[in-house]
């Protein structure tokens, strides 16, 4: 909660500027550096997940292929889904939460900087924990939603599922800790004048997402805990011999699972809602409605989960209710789509790379959304569910939606994060190959699905009418590999060689563009007092924001908070020079995270009947964790 303090407070120097070595990264509590760590780690996992996808597609290129074994294939698609959802897209969003939220609301850091570092380290260690097994052919193989009873010890004797259960449990802790942190940050650390209805749309969508996280993760935590108990302690939650009902898992999982998909898309929606106005030189069309529709989507998202279960025989009444609830969601989402288009209408649309990705999101997500509505009609879904038509649907929303939006965000904010632009030409190549590649990959899947190809099959027989579509999808994937490789190259190289970007390379409207790029450790030397939704346009081009209501700077607030009217900050100092107290770097969060993961690892030994070892490791981990926590709690933040 290193927010605004009196410049008079005794200044603690933060090690940042003097020290940029590895240790400074390990001990950092700076939301910007943590955001950067998230970004790099998540991009790495995206490559891992994509690589798995590439293997999947290669195996499916032709009928009766023997490129990988059935067992390997099952591990590949399970880990592909798990990696992309939990290790790539969610953390990519988290990277932006970390980096942007404080900057957009005019704060100096998140509410709990050390908890923030903790979240990252738990994510990293959890990601490694769940990913390593694939190198030894013992990766999880139950599918990304791990339906019982296939995951119960009776049908899965190996350690595969153990890694999945514990891994997801660990990752859940990371997401939850982060969510509490961001909720507090957004509620409490907004700069003077930054009322809720003045928050940038990205912050708004992130705000909604944090609530989805704190409400959606507990159910899966419980479901996983049951499975954990079943696997390690012989309980009966999913034990069919004891009369367990497999639908229990399915319901608990999807109560989490559906809100999860909106957790994956809303941050992307937020990002394009920043990009589109900037490059249309127009404010977002219907700001309030955009906010309400976001909230609506999040809220409705808790009432539709059973649309993933239309084939399990819930009965006509339940099917009907969940079908209608599901269709409802199309309405607020549609509003977003149309408002985005209206945002560009009668604007000056500049086709920069981020803008291209943002426009592509509108175009591609709509396709995925429409196939979603096709799923939402249960009788029709009985022909579609568990076929490639579903695979097509969710890749259009996930790749065409989340990934497109996130790429838009990366190209848009890279200059802010690094002070340098990504290369435009390479960016265009990346975009077009990506755009064509994804359609070539996923569009044919609609057909293979409707032509009778079930999903999660490691092979298919010849002459079934699947061949052409799979061939196309595979070549499309190879295009995506090339596209991604170009992006990776551009991303790495531009760090040193990209052209220099100033404070505000794109003509943005929000606070993050009023400070140097990359921002100094303290973000804002003086906290600005916000008087409208588009503070920077107020400053640079007042006629643009003439149409919206402003509040004039309030003298009392200013004296109370030492805020100053919105202004551009050009020169950078260290926090020490400005006497701004910064949180002290510390490795305690890492230590606590590490010992917690060790504690979880202990369980693994139970399955191989090494009770002594299991107990020592678990108790050791727990003891270390508590000790670390104690030190953490008792050491001052600043």
């Amino acid at each position, binding site marked *: 909660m290193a927010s605004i303090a009196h410049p008079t407070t005794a200044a603690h120097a933060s090690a940042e500027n003097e020290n940029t070595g590895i240790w400074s990264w390990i001990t950092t509590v700076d939301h910007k550096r943590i955001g950067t760590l998230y970004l790099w780690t998540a991009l790495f996992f995206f490559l891992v997940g994509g690589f798995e996808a590439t293997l999947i597609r290669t195996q499916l290129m032709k009928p009766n292929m023997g490129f990988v074994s059935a067992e390997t294939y099952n591990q590949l698609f399970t880990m592909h889904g798990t990696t992309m959802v939990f290790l790539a897209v969610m953390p990519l969003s988290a990277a932006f939460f970390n980096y942007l939220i404080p900057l957009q609301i005019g704060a100096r850091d998140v509410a709990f900087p050390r908890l923030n570092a903790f979240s990252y380290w738990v994510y990293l260690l959890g990601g490694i924990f769940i990913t390593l097994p694939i190198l030894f052919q013992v990766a999880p193989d139950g599918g990304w939603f791990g339906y019982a009873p296939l995951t119960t010890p009776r049908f899965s004797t190996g350690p595969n599922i153990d890694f999945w259960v514990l891994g997801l449990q660990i990752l859940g802790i990371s997401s939850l800790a982060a969510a509490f942190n961001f909720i507090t940050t957004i509620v409490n650390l907004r700069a003077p004048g930054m009322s809720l209805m003045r928050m940038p749309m990205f912050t708004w969508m992130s705000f909604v997402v944090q*609530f989805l996280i*704190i409400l959606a993760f507990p159910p899966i935590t419980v479901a996983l805990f049951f499975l954990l108990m079943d696997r390690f302690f012989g309980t009966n939650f999913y034990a069919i011999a004891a009369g367990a*009902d497999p*639908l*229990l898992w399915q*319901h608990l999982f999807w109560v989490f699972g559906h809100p999860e998909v909106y957790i994956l898309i809303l941050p992307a929606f937020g990002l394009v809602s920043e990009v589109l106005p900037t490059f249309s030189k127009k404010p977002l069309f219907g700001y309030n409605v955009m906010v309400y529709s976001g909230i609506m989507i999040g809220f409705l998202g*808790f*009432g539709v989960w*059973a649309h993933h279960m239309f084939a399990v025989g*819930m009965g006509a009444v339940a099917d009907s209710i969940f079908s209608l609830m599901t269709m409802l969601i199309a309405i607020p989402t549609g509003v977003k789509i149309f408002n985005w288009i209206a945002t560009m209408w009668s604007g000056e649309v500049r086709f920069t790379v981020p803008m291209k990705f943002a426009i592509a999101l509108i175009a591609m997500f709509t396709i995925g959304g429409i196939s979603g509505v096709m799923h939402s009609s249960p009788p029709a879904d009985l022909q579609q569910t568990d076929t490639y038509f579903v695979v097509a649907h969710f890749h259009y929303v996930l790749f065409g939606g989340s990934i497109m939006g996130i790429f838009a965000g990366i190209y848009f904010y890279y200059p802010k994060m690094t002070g340098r632009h990504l290369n435009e030409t390479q960016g265009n190549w990346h975009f077009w190959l990506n755009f064509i590649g994804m359609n070539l990959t996923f569009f044919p899947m609609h057909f293979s699905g409707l032509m009778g190809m079930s999903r999660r099959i490691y092979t298919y027989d010849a002459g079934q009418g699947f061949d052409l579509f799979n061939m196309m999808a595979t070549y499309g994937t190879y295009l995506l590999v090339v596209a991604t490789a170009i992006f990776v190259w551009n991303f790495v190289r531009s760090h040193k060689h990209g052209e220099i970007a100033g404070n505000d390379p794109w003509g943005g409207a929000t606070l993050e563009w009023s400070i140097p790029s990359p921002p100094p450790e303290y973000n804002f030397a003086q906290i600005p007092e916000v008087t409208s939704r588009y503070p920077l346009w107020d400053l640079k081009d007042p006629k643009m924001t003439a149409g919206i209501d402003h509040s004039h700077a309030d003298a009392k607030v200013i004296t109370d908070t030492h805020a100053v009217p919105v202004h551009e900050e050009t020169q950078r100092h260290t926090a020490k020079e400005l006497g701004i107290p910064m949180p002290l770097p510390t490795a305690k969060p890492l230590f606590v995270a590490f010992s917690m993961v060790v504690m979880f690892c202990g369980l693994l030994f139970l399955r191989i009947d090494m009770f002594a070892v299991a107990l020592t490791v678990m108790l050791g981990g727990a003891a270390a964790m508590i000790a670390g926590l104690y030190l953490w709690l008792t050491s001052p933040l600043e």
Partner: protein
Amino acid sequence: MAHESAHVDKHAAHAHPNGATYLKIFVILTLITVVEVWAYYIPALVASPLFNPSLIIMSAVKFAIVVMFYMHLKYDHKIFKMLFSGPLVIAMATIVALLFLFRQLSF
């Protein structure tokens, strides 16, 4: 700022019921609990279709009292009311929906 937040606290402290009220509340909670347990031992009541509903209502009342007074949500900032009631509603709805889905409740 310090004085202000301090002021907020003090203000809250005064708005709060004092020890006596807390005691009253405690007595009420105890009484309701006694009634609940007593009902449990009257077969006639247990048999009646109103047994479960009335028990659930009683516990709901206890729940509400503790939250409003002991957790002083009644007197606290509205942001806290939202942070609690929102999730609570979704949680309740989810339980009920699940019970219908598993035929443990039915129309």
